[in-house]
């Protein structure tokens, strides 16, 4: 039950302040696309620590959080900057040095765990996985089909993040949120997490949601707070508004340590937040 104030819109700093140290945080988007990167950077500015990050395909977000020493644990399917940018080096180093704990998934096994949480059941069967070393690594159980097919199916325990943060194209002050293009894994993340935060490119009128309610990915009553950060998925993309800023990503990757200049150059520092 979420109380219903007139407006759920808060400043970015206020949204980040709602994330406690040690929280399990699910991040929306995929690789460099429509990630809640402004919120990720703000968590770093606020010196958040011991976070558990849950995301099928993190990259820039997990990398910069590792540089900041903000991460204790990662539950992920595939981690990279992608393509010609290669691996996520700070993340890679943190795992290799055993500074962070990794729970390695296939993207769909992570999703199965999220489905179990969203569906209110303790575990979720998932197709495939047979022959992989991942089940033994993660001590997953297999269950024989009780209906006698002879099939054994791998089941993933429920994964219920404390908070899901989703970057969206448009939200309204009640929290309704919609995205254009693929929703990546954001639907299941928003249903699996205990609390849902939205970072929006812009506020849109409630009336525009009434006109086409089928486009709403997350209904407002499920959303605790919204912040508005134009260009907040930088240096990634937010379709159809902007593309990946590859020079900025490359500059980030060439830097070392906590990327102060990069953090200072981010849109949430450059532009007034429309809240």
């Amino acid at each position: 039950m979420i109380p219903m104030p007139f407006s759920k819109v808060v400043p970015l700093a206020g949204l980040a302040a709602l994330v406690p140290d040690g929280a399990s945080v699910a991040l929306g988007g995929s690789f460099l696309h429509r990630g809640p990167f402004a919120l990720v950077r703000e968590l770093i500015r606020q010196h958040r620590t011991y976070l558990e990050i849950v995301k099928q395909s993190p990259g820039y977000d997990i990398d910069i959080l590792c540089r900041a020493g903000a991460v204790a644990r990662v539950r992920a399917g595939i981690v990279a900057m992608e393509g010609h940018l290669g691996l996520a080096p700070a993340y890679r180093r943190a795992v290799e040095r055993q500074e962070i704990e990794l729970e390695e998934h296939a993207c769909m096994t992570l999703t199965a765990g999220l489905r179990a949480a969203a569906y209110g059941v303790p575990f979720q069967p998932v197709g495939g996985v047979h022959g992989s070393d991942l089940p033994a690594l993660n001590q997953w159980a297999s269950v024989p089909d009780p209906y006698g097919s002879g099939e054994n199916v791998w089941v993933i325990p429920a994964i219920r993040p404390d908070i899901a943060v989703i970057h969206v194209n448009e939200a309204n002050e009640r929290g309704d949120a919609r995205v254009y293009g693929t929703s990546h894994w954001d639907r299941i993340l928003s249903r699996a997490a205990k609390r849902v935060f939205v970072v929006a490119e812009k506020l849109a009128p409630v009336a525009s949601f009434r006109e086409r309610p089928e486009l709403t990915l997350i209904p407002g009553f499920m959303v605790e707070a919204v912040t508005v950060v134009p260009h907040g998925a930088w240096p990634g993309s937010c379709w159809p508004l902007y593309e990946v800023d590859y020079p900025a990503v490359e500059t980030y990757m060439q830097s070392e340590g906590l990327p102060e200049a990069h953090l200072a150059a981010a849109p949430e520092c450059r532009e007034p937040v429309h809240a």
Partner: protein
Amino acid sequence: MPERWSAFSYLVTNLARFIRPDEVTFSGVNSTPPMLACLLAKRAYDFDFVYINVAGGVQPTPSVIPRSSSDPVLAEGSTAIFSNEDFYDLCTRGGMDLCFLGAAQVDGLGRTNVSAIGDWHAPKVRLPGGGGGAVMLPTARRAVTWRTEHSRRTLVEKLDFVTAAGGLHGVVTPLAVFELRDGSLALRSWHPEASLVEVQRRTGFAFDATGAAPTPPPGARESAALRSLDPDGQFEREANVALR
């Protein structure tokens, strides 16, 4: 006179040659060569197939070819958005005909490692991780991977970690094309500027080479399609792939 292969065109074009008419064919994240292969097949071949991708695109007509194989532009022109849960479920219920999946190491049984080099718990190199493989490789009707490096480090006798099993249908490197035969990878063809002996020397697992021959050269339409996808050679430069 037939065109010669570049290492890059060999890789992309031979991935495209795994695509069959009318089938549902998928390319995912971190998968530039198969993305290009799918787009090449659309331009070079006479048949149609259902191209779906990780950006939610279904039969998209992207206005630009993105550097990121998960770029949302890959859904441009699509008449539907087929989201991540949707295409994974399609695969696990048996509706994915051909799936391109990444790999760091491949063994002779067509299993893959994308997790770690060295001991998983104290890795020499932490790799990207599970991704689509463990679920899609055993459930897609056919799965195909590629490696930009053909060596005993990448095509191995024994994987450091089995991320995904189930048997790849095909593997393409700058040197050769393998396909699954009776549960093991067999050589189908090799780069015409190389030899069977070179493939054997640079491959970590033993393989059957019955019927293998030099790879047929690129067709004019295949070459033209690849040039149209990479007119200024940016993808070829960034792929940084060589025959040797």
